[in-house]
């Protein structure tokens, strides 16, 4: 099956810093989504981004499908950004299910 690798596995920042999270995948995809799992366990959909670039406030994401990676940018990080960020993909031509990476655990200190 398709492999999804996220890096770094852990990231610690001071409030106000910027960061880039990476997601590499091993096959062509027709669906890629980024999720944030907050400290209470809720999984929040951040972006549906199989290709191109999107921005939502301090967050933006870019997927380069031809090179099989996606990046999530967090600018001016806040303590509420803490949690685990997951990348999930659906293989092109596969069944309609997302395969998740192991996540990047982000800690933003005040």
């Amino acid at each position, binding site marked *: 099956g398709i492999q999804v690798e996220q890096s770094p596995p852990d990231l610690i920042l001071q409030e106000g810093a910027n960061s880039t999270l990476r997601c590499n995948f091993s096959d062509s995809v027709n669906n890629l989504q980024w*999720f944030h799992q907050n400290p209470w366990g809720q*999984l929040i959909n951040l972006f549906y981004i199989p290709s191109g670039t999107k921005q939502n406030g301090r967050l933006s994401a870019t997927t380069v499908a031809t090179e099989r990676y996606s990046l999530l940018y967090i600018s001016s990080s806040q303590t509420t950004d803490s949690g685990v960020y997951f990348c999930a993909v659906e293989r092109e031509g596969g*069944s309609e299910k997302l395969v998740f990476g*192991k996540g990047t655990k982000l800690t933003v200190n005040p």
Partner: protein
Amino acid sequence: EAGVTQFPSHSVIEKGQTVTLRCDPISGHDNLYWYRRVMGKEIKFLLHFVKESKQDESGMPNNRFLAERTGGTYSTLKVQPAELEDSGVYFCASSYDRTYSPLHFGNGTRLTVT
């Protein structure tokens, strides 16, 4: 609009007992998915409903797990009998379109089997 709702939020049961988890998807979402995350591992797909039909149940671990979606509205996931390795967080998610729309997750049910 109301989000995906799961009940209960937590469940602690003994090995051998039965537990039923419930999921109410976002209204109008025909696609309903169950995922789970066992301790320290990735979030893994369990199954996918389109309305009341099981589209893909390839992720169901074994026949102790039974999912239903009668009438194409809410769904239940029953574990009978529960084993220790079933402990984890069970997430339900729904989407409007199979592939080309965002997946919205519920808050999950944390299941502990002792």
